[in-house]
């Protein structure tokens, strides 16, 4: 299996403040993170707010340049601080954002949203063919050609996230960075979008970097899991290994905090509550 994405000791520092008199401060958002993802696999990056997971997602998606470390895409070192990504490289990596309400321009029709990446990166494609490609992609993500001329406000959250995924796939990327793609969605819609992502991965051989704070979603979709906390990867490994036997204290804490819907656990809790009530002599 070929490695699509590799990161070696990636760091990111943010410089804050340093006004007229104040001293500037450096925040180390990432303190050296290494990882690699094989073609067709999903790496899930798990962490809480402030852990640096979105910082890492932005670096992988070639939006921000890291302060240090090496990023390799399909074996080629990439440094966007030295050289702007060309259309070929840009086409390889695409991103889907968390908030499907904020990530689509309210004044741009869906058809135009989907065709724009082609206009910029594939200028040789004729207008008619562009439109055909966009309509085909709409159908592929579970919408229809009749949605081509509609505006984002006419769609539900789940449909908008499908549009965002369709837009990301227009350039046939090999790597898709998904930053909390289902956390703004209702449970039943979340299930539909996760199914769609699984289907698309199989069909196009896509590699996913899936950023999430939701461990039950990660357990469902990931092949490899990386848990980050305060800019460090505290746990890395295959999904089964991480979930069966977490070695790091923070990972265990994260698992313990995740609510479970296990019937035996509920039975135990209900019994405990009843016992406490009877002990207190509460009328019930």
């Amino acid at each position, binding site marked *: 299996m070929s490695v699509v994405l590799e990161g070696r000791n990636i760091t990111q520092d943010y410089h804050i403040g340093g006004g007229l008199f104040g001293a500037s401060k450096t925040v180390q958002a990432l303190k050296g993170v290494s990882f690699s993802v094989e073609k067709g696999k999903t790496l899930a990056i798990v962490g*809480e*707010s402030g852990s640096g997971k979105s910082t890492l997602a932005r670096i992988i998606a070639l939006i921000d340049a890291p302060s240090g470390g090496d990023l390799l895409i399909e074996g080629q070192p990439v440094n966007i601080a030295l050289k702007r990504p060309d259309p070929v490289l840009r086409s390889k990596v695409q991103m889907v954002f968390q908030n499907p309400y904020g990530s689509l321009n309210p004044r741009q029709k869906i058809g135009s949203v989907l065709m724009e990446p082609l206009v910029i990166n594939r200028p040789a494609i004729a207008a008619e063919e562009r439109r055909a490609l966009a309509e085909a992609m709409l159908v592929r993500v579970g919408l229809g050609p009749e949605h081509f001329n509609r505006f984002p406000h006419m769609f539900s*959250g789940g449909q908008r996230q499908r549009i965002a995924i369709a837009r990301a796939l227009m350039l046939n990327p090999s790597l898709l960075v998904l930053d909390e793609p289902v956390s703004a969605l*209702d*449970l*039943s*819609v*979340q*299930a*539909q979008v*996760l*199914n769609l992502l*699984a289907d698309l991965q199989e069909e196009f051989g896509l590699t996913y970097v899936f950023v999430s*704070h*939701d*461990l*039950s*979603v990660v*357990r*469902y*979709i990931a092949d490899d899991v990386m848990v980050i906390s305060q800019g460090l990867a505290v746990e890395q490994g295959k999904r089964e290994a991480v979930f069966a036997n977490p070695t790091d204290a923070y990972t265990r*804490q*994260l698992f*313990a*905090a*995740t*609510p*479970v*819907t*296990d*019937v035996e*656990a*509920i*039975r135990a*809790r*209900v019994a405990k*509550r009843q016992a*406490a*009530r009877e002990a207190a002599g*509460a009328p*019930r």
Partner: protein
Amino acid sequence: MALLKIRNLTVRFATSTGSFTAVDGIDTEVDRGEVLAIVGESGSGKSVSMLAVMGLLPDTATITADEMSYDGHDLLHMTKAERRQLIGREITMIFQEPIASLNPSFTVGFQIEEVLRLNLGMSRRDAHARALELFRQVGIPLPEEKLTSYPHQMSGGQCQRVMIAMAIASKPRLLIADEPTTALDVTIQKQILDLLMDLQEEYGMALILITHDMGVVAETADRVVVQYQGKKMEEADVLSLFEAPKHPYTRALLSALPENATGDRLPTVSDFFGEAVR
């Protein structure tokens, strides 16, 4: 006798495209000291029905019910003055976005002391002492220092603790929590839920927890109401609901949980709904 009793509650909103029914004939009861979870997805009317109880809906809403009463008081035909005696004292509420619920221009100490002075008629000095006590009770670190902090200087979890401190200040008998942990990280969510459950037991207050998260329901509720598109789908005690969900929509919700996934694909609601709801 039930503490809160709602029979056939309907809430309609007048919109530019006609009337929209957000809550459609809901019956609910909450007993003293009981934890009731209302679960549903967006648009299920779970928040709107509780906002109707609180009298917090805008004028565009039309509320009708056969009965809506709290401890024998008729909430439907109550004057504003009578309502003020109940809301904020006997019945309090906390909301989803803790940081947005607080006024960014005042310190959190000022805001909680304001609640104590206006709602409970305390003097400035008493209010300050009580605020400190409440901050300790809800587990805010360095309470004295934090009283002089502004909301933006605190984390989301701490802001939610401040909101909880305000809500329990009057020792209410009913606390309505609308998605209290949705905006928080899981480890913080656990702390806040534990705090709410501890306070609930300590004060013996009834707690209505509005949530979309089945995991939260499993870890807190005594009884559960499942709502979908403004209608009640199922009502059961928590154990029976998870053990043997009766309504197809409840089954759909439970099996759409990624942790319950058995095969390669997650079942979706449409897999469960034949003609059941439509």
